[in-house]
């Protein structure tokens, strides 16, 4: 870590101490800001306060400044709280509350992503097995343009935005979530759990009684349900996929993620959105399979025999 970077983290750490009540001393401020549970819970509580998103909110200011510091470690810290920011923000949009503080942070993230990919769309080429690849051979070596037809835009091009226009709101939050996803392997579990919990709320389905087997009565909840267009849902699903099936196994996260997937699947059925039904349905089934996979044979284990031979 360079001096200037740790210096920025240090000063951010200092300025945070005037916002939250107790801040434990730390040798490595950037690490503490990202991983310290006491700091995280205080910031979370503040972010969930009724007036937290206002333009003059200290914490929003701090988050905005931290992100604009261009220090990668501090930017990670801001992203760590994105689930709460996005979650609280989207749930409050219809309540006519001041949200300029949240919007400033979200726009900073959006602008960062816009700059880093020069506004370009992200496309992928769906592979076609009739062409040989590094992983397989194919007999037909005919050069066709068929692959061009499989070009898919997975994230459209980005326009710079100075304010959050309501029709672009989902896109701006979606892009911020894309940024979050790109750093998700460095995010602490708590941040991901927050995200899963908000997803469950966004789906807007009430579970009256979880105890009864299979008879969970789901009803569209009056509170919480938000409009979930694909530009928002797609990055949400990618993050949930990571939480549910990613390399780090964590029981709490798994539980939160599978609950979120189930809720979003029910929501997709409510919206009769084929893409979302397919994607969330697969996640729900994969979550169940992952639960069973603990009992699967471990092929890297040596066979247990009574006769050991040289």
């Amino acid at each position, binding site marked *: 870590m360079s001096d200037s970077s740790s210096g920025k983290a240090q000063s951010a750490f200092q300025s945070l101490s005037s916002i939250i009540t107790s801040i434990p001393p730390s040798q490595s401020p950037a690490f503490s800001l990202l991983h310290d549970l006491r700091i995280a819970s205080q910031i979370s509580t503040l972010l969930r306060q009724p007036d937290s998103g206002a333009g003059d909110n200290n914490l929003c200011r701090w988050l905005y400044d931290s992100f604009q510091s261009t220090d990668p470690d501090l930017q990670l810290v801001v992203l760590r709280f994105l689930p709460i920011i996005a979650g609280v923000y989207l749930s409050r949009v219809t309540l006519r509350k001041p949200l300029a503080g949240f919007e400033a942070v979200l726009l900073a993230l959006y602008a960062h992503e816009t700059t880093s990919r020069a506004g370009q769309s992200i496309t992928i080429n*769906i*592979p076609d097995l009739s062409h040989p690849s*590094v992983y397989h051979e194919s007999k037909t070596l005919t050069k066709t343009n068929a692959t061009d037809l499989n070009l898919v835009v997975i994230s459209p091009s980005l326009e710079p935005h100075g304010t959050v226009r309501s029709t672009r709101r989902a896109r701006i939050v979606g892009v911020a979530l894309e940024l979050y996803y790109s750093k998700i392997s460095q995010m602490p579990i708590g941040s991901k759990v927050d995200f899963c919990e908000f997803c469950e709320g966004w789906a807007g389905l009430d579970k009256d009684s979880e105890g009864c087997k299979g008879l969970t009565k789901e009803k569209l909840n009056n509170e919480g349900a938000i409009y979930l267009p694909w530009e928002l849902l797609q990055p949400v*699903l990618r993050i949930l996929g990571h939480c549910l099936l990613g390399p*780090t196994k964590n029981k709490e996260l798994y539980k939160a993620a599978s609950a979120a997937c189930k809720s979003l699947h029910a929501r997709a059925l409510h919206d009769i959105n084929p893409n979302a039904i397919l994607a969330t349905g697969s996640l729900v089934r994969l979550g169940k399979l992952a639960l069973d996979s603990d009992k699967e044979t471990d092929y*890297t284990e*040596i066979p247990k025999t009574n006769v050991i031979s040289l």
Partner: protein
Amino acid sequence: MLFHSEYSVDTEVEKIGRVLKLESIKNGNVWKNVDILVFNSWHWWIRNVAKQPWDYIQTGNKILKDMDHMVAFREALTTWAKWVDSDVDTIKTRVIFQGISPNHYSGKNWKEPGVKSCSMEKQPILGTTYPSGLPAASYALQDVLSRIKKPVHLLNITTLSLVFIFMGGDFFWRIWMNLGKEGEEKEKREGEEEKTEKKGKKVKGADMAETDEYDGGEFSVREVSANGIRMKTTEVEAKLDQGNIEEAESSLREGLSLNFEHSLEPMSFGFLGLSFEFEFAEQLSEALVYKWLNTMVYEPLTNLVMKEEARALLGRLEYQRGNVEGALRVFDGIDLQAAIQRLQPTLSDKPSRKGRIRSDSQNTVSQHAASLVLEAIYLKAKSLQNLGRLTEAANECRSVIDAVERIFQQGIPDVQVDSRLQETVSQAVELLPELWKQAGCNQEAISAYRRALLSQWNLDNDCCARIQKAFAVFLLHSGVEAGPPSLGSQIDGSYVPKNNLEEAILLLMILMRKYILGKINWDPSVMEHLTFALSLCSKTSIVAKQLEEMMPGVYLRSDHWNALALCYSGVGENSTALNLLRKSLHKHEQPDDLMALLLAAKICSEDSHLAAEGVGYANSAVSNAKGKNEHLKGVGLRMLGLCLGKQAKISSSDYERSRLQSEALKSLEAAFSYERNNLEIIFDLGVQYAEQRNLNAALRHAKQFIDATGGSLLKGWRLLALVLSAQQRFSEAEVVTDAALDETTKWEQGSMLRLKAKLKLAQSLPIDAIETYRYLLALVQAQKKSFSPHISVSQVDDDKVDEFEVWHGLANLYSKLLHWKDVELCLGKAKELKQYSAEMLHTEGVVCQGRGNMHEALSGYINALLLDPSYVPSKILIAAVLSKVASKALPVARGLLSDALRIEPTNTMAWFHLGVIHRDDGRLADAADCFQAAAMLEESDPIESFSSLL
């Protein structure tokens, strides 16, 4: 116990004398249940007549005085082999056949003519082959043994014994005997007194002492009880439990050397390796040979080879007992890296060093030794993994793979690889990325996965498939961007995935292909991951392709059809989707599947000709939404409402229409009561009320929708503006459009701006309207500049300003202002973009009509109708023109207008012209009704049709 049966087969005393029966093996019953059976036979077959213990040979029904001994030997062996296959339980009994000992009776075989016995020889012959070649009997033996089905271990002492001339076959027997005795003593010590067990576990060393020097070693059948491996392990384990690794090791080594299977290979390996080093300066007595063997061969062997191997075995034992810490201590005690390095020269393809003896068996022996060492490192890695020391584990595991890579520089060949080595390699290759993954070293995991998949490890299909799947899952869900594979692995012309999604999809598709080709078993998660990945890309058509390639029987066929329907519907191919849903909803399939019913109803709700069918699906969905699916009842009701509303549009009678419309509203209201916060229902209700001209209710819902969505949906703003315009509150409508324009980015403003222009015109502000269009045209130019080079067609449709619409809208505006020249100019521009369209032909007609050119106007309208038979404005104007030019044509005009009203019951112009026709025909009452309708409608006419919202 020694059992003296020289020929394995029976010798019976009959009348004619002693008969050797080549096809009888009665003695077998006595041997069957012992622990270890060691057979040896041959010397007896080459006895001279005086010494032979039989008088006749019986083969089949023939009794012969004598025959070719080699043939007889082969026959007897075959009988024995059959007996082993049929009578011996090789799980309980280990069968060993000590190979042919060459006769050391003639010195000429080892180039010392005149010598009659080997007992005076003290030095081995140099070289791995015996000068006079292998005895013929050993070929017969190998031949018979190769055909035996059960596991019989051939103790191939032939070459060994040939080279070590001083070791007759008995030499090995002597080792056996001594070991057997030890075992017996140990048994006594341990006081296991159970008679039945002990019966077969004794070695009578005394028997051997009585026999003469050569014959004594050639008892063809012996029953030896070495300590069984389990006994040994308990002893070893006890020592391990005391933490005494050294003792455990030595006791294991001691125990191991009892077991031929175990000691043989390292022994021969050691012998071959050591043989050239022997320097016997002085002659040793026979008695000293054994001692020599112990000190000069066993010990170095034990120390050089057995050290690692014994440790490896010990470690494995500990590992299997679940004592990974103990295993690790054992593995830590030896330098496995050094052992690998020691093995490498023999394993590489480099020419052998001077004097080193090479043999055919050397390669396999080395491989075996290598596999033991590698397995030990592998187990070390596993132990570390179990202890959670993941990075260390990964490094150990990688060293296995590195070693293998150095040994087999050309990749592992398909054949001639020790199966155990291959197994260790496969496991290590599979384990390494998992370890990195668990250690959180994502980049290392990615390179380990790629190394596993892109190098030649000779992995079997299942193992390769498991790694491919694990990698695909990692790429999809780790959130770590892997970057494209290195250039080194790229082959000319082959496809190289350039990001995670591409690589994951490629791997999953390859797995699907492998399954379809029958190379691997079905794994449902592969298809699920692929579905997830492709739906994220909104490319569900490719999921459909994969599903279609799948063998029937994997999924229930109705589920299969439903999944396909979702895929097709996902890419907008709704008619294909509906056909599939019809199949899966057939009464013999799954007519009650809620998802299928809802999707079918939704597809039908978008087409008025399918709406009636959709009503059926929606009703069924509502009645099936029970139990845990009760939450979908509201969705079913919503679909019912939408289908009814759509059905109302094509109903032939007013009565029918109003009935359907009120039912539609009732369903939507019911749906709303179930799902208070379902935004779509609010919007649907707003549109439905607006279409029925219940403008106040429509307005309420439009406002509610904008509130609930936070104004994030353009259609909400449009609905509100149109409802306000229908209420003739134009200035308020304009405020709404301005607010909407504030909330949108410029590329999405096209439809709002056109609405605004129309509102301006409605307020008699044509200049402002034209100004609005001018802005729109500037937007179009800007859009062209910023998007022209790289834009895919699909993206334009949604949210970009449609240039054709702009020109056409402007043309309409000018035609209303009667600026015919400008209209023509705009139409020309529009024509460049879209040559034929009903709207444009219609507007051309309007221009002609405006200039008084009735015939051309008429042909323009008719052309528009030919393009779109349900284009209402043309129908109305044709009727208007016809009613003016010819009174005979009034019935035709009336027909056209009725048709127009069927399509658009609320069209003011149609009602007006119908009234005119009625009036001209003298039906004044009807005319009055029509004019009244027109007047009423005009008061609630939106500036754009409400149906443009859907």
